C-alpha cells in the first residue's frame, strides 16, 4: 500500500470500553468533528469478558458485539481495525501505522488497554501456551482443544477462573496454580475466597495454592506434555493458560515524554501531561475513590467512564472524572459474589463489619467512618447501595450495623440518603406535599 495521510479532529487508539465511551461522549457534544478509531484487533468493539462465553459455547461474534452493527457508521467514525499503531509523534500530532499510513490528529485518546503478563517460564512462549484477554486468544485455545485435553491455568484471579470455568464447561480437566495462598486474593477476602474455592473443587477443578510453575515440559513435535511446579511436582497437561494479570500497554507512549508511572498518569480530566493527549482504561492511572489516589484499576466500568470523561473533555465540554472504584462481579458455577473498593485492609486502621445468613455472606470495610470496600456472596441485589456509599463518601458511623443487616435496603439508611432521589420534585407537585420534619433519623438502631 502506498503511504497515505489522513486527518482527524479526534483520534482514539483502542476499540474497547474506553474507546467506545469516548466515541459516545464526543458525539453527544460534537456531531460533525472528524473521528477515527485505531485498533490492532480486526473486530468491531466486542465485550471482552464474553470471550469466556465464546470459549465455553462458541458464542458467535454478533452476540458479543458491545454496540449494535452500524454503530461506527451512525456515529461517523472512521475505523482502522486490524491495524497496529507503530509510532506516535506528539510535536507533529501524528500517528504512524505499521501499514505505512499516517494519521494526523488534534486530540488523541490512548485507550490501548493492557497486555497479559507472561513471566519467563522455561518452555513458555511456544505452542500450547496461551493467554486469555482477546477474542483471538479464545479462538486459538478453541482450535487447540480436544475433548481429551487437560489444562493448567497459571493464576487464580478473575481471568484465570473465567478461562477455568469455560474450559470446564468444555469438558477439559483443569488445574489452577495460584502463587499466593488463596484464589481470587485481590478481589475477595479470605472467607469469600474459601467459599469460591470449595465451589470450584466440587466442580472437579484442582486448585494448588502457594506454588508457581517452574517449567513447561514438551514432548514430540514440541507439544506440551505437562508442567513442573517450583516444589518439583509434575502435572501432566496438553495446554497451559497464563493468566497472571495484565500490565498497561505503554510501548506507544514510552518514548514520547508523556509522564508515566505504572500506567499513564492522568489528571481529573483524564488528560495526560501533554495537553492534547488523554488516556483511560487499563493503560491509565486514574483517580480511585476508595483509595483516594490515582492507581491502575483495570476493570471494564472504569474504562468506559474514563473514556466518556476523556471524550467530553476532548470535545471541549469540561468534565471531571468522578473517580473509579474497583468493582467485580462473579458468578462462577452459579454462585454470585461481588466486591468493590478495598477488600483486604492493609492495616488495622480499618474497621470490618461482617455477617453470614444461610448462604449469604456480607462484609463492609470502613475507614475513618466511611465505607471503602464491600464483599457480598449469595444475595447480592442490594450491594449497589453500599457501593454508592463508597462513591458518595458518606459517613456511616451512626448506622453502620445496618449495612450488614439481613434485610438491608434503602429504608435502613438515613432519610436524606433516599428521600431526595425518590420523592416528587416540588415543581411537579399538583398539591404541595406536607413534609414532616425528619425526626426519625435513627436508621440502623
Amino acid at each position: 500500500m502506498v503511504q497515505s495521510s489522513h486527518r482527524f479532529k479526534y483520534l482514539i487508539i483502542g476499540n474497547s470500553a474506553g474507546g467506545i465511551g469516548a466515541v459516545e461522549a464526543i458525539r453527544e457534544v460534537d456531531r460533525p468533528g472528524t473521528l477515527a478509531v485505531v485498533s490492532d484487533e480486526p473486530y468491531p468493539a466486542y465485550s471482552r469478558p464474553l470471550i469466556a462465553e465464546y470459549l465455553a459455547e462458541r458464542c458467535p461474534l454478533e452476540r458479543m458485539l458491545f454496540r449494535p452493527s452500524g454503530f461506527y457508521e451512525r456515529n461517523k467514525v472512521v475505523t482502522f481495525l486490524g491495524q497496529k499503531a507503530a509510532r506516535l509523534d506528539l510535536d507533529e500530532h501524528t500517528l504512524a501505522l505499521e501499514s505505512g499510513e499516517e494519521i494526523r490528529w488534534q486530540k488523541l485518546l490512548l485507550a490501548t488497554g493492557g497486555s497479559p503478563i507472561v513471566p519467563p517460564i522455561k518452555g513458555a512462549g511456544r505452542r500450547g501456551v496461551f493467554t486469555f484477554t482477546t477474542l483471538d486468544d479464545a479462538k486459538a485455545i478453541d482450535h487447540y482443544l480436544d475433548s481429551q485435553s487437560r489444562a493448567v491455568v497459571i493464576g487464580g484471579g478473575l481471568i484465570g477462573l473465567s478461562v477455568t470455568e469455560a474450559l470446564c464447561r468444555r469438558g477439559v480437566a483443569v488445574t489452577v496454580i495460584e502463587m499466593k495462598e488463596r484464589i481470587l486474593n485481590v478481589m475477595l477476602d479470605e472467607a469469600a475466597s474459601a467459599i469460591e474455592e470449595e465451589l470450584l473443587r466440587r466442580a472437579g477443578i484442582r486448585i494448588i495454592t502457594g506454588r508457581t510453575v517452574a517449567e513447561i515440559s514438551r514432548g514430540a513435535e514440541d507439544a506440551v506434555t505437562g508442567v513442573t511446579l517450583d516444589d518439583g511436582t509434575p502435572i501432566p497437561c496438553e495446554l497451559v493458560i497464563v493468566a497472571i494479570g495484565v500490565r498497561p500497554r505503554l510501548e506507544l507512549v514510552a518514548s514520547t515524554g508523556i509522564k508515566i508511572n505504572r500506567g499513564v498518569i492522568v489528571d481529573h480530566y483524564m488528560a495526560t501531561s501533554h495537553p492534547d493527549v488523554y488516556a483511560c482504561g487499563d493503560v491509565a492511572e486514574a483517580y480511585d475513590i476508595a483509595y483516594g489516589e490515582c492507581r491502575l484499576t483495570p476493570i471494564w466500568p472504569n474504562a468506559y467512564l474514563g473514556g466518556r470523561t476523556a471524550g467530553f473533555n476532548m470535545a471541549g465540554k469540561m468534565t471531571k472524572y468522578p473517580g473509579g472504584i474497583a468493582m467485580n462481579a462473579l458468578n462462577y458455577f452459579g454462585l454470585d459474589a461481588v466486591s468493590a473498593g478495598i477488600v483486604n485492609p492493609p492495616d488495622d486502621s480499618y474497621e470490618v463489619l461482617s455477617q453470614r445468613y444461610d448462604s449469604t455472606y456480607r462484609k463492609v470495610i470502613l475507614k475513618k467512618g466511611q465505607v471503602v470496600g464491600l464483599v457480598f456472596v449469595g444475595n447480592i441485589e442490594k450491594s449497589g447501595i453500599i457501593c454508592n456509599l463508597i462513591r458518595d463518601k458518606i459517613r456511616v458511623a451512626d448506622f453502620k450495623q445496618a449495612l450488614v443487616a439481613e434485610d438491608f435496603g434503602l429504608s435502613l439508611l438515613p432519610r436524606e440518603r433516599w428521600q431526595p432521589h425518590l420523592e416528587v420534585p416540588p415543581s411537579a407537585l399538583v398539591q404541595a406535599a406536607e413534609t414532616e420534619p425528619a425526626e426519625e433519623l435513627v436508621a440502623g438502631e
Partner: protein
Amino acid sequence: MKTVYVKEEVCIGCGLCEVYCRLEHSRSKDLIKSFKRESQQPMPLLRVERREPISFAVTCRHCAEPHCVYACITGALQRDRESGIVTVDGEKCIGCWTCILACPFGVIRQEKGKGKIAKCDLCLAKKIPACVDNCPNEALVYAEVQDETLS
C-alpha cells in the same frame, strides 16, 4: 422525561404496586394465571421498602448519568437518547451482575432462572406505568423529571 416518584408519607406498604408490576410484565396479563400457572413467573421490577412505620416503593430512577449503563460489560443496558428510559436487551444480558453492583438504589433484579437481570421499563407501551396506575393511595406519582440532562 417522566418517571415514577413516591410519596412516602401516604405509602402504606400494601405492595399492590409490586403485584401490578408483575402482572404487567407477565405473559398472560391475567392475575390468577400469571401468579399461579405461568412457568416463567415475572418478578416485580420495583420493590417496597418497609421499616415500620416507614414504607416506600423504590423504582429505577432512569438516571441521567446511569452507572448501570456505564458498568454494563455487554452493551445490554442502554439509555434511550430520546425517551431517557434505561432498558435492558434480554438477548445481550449474560447475568454478570456488574450493573447490580453499580446501581445506587439496588433496584436491578436478578432473574436467576434466566440468568439475566430484570429492571423497570416504565411500562414502555402504557401511558401510565402499572404501579402508578394501581396505587390505591396515590403514593406513586408519574411526573416530569427536573434537572434533566438529556442530550
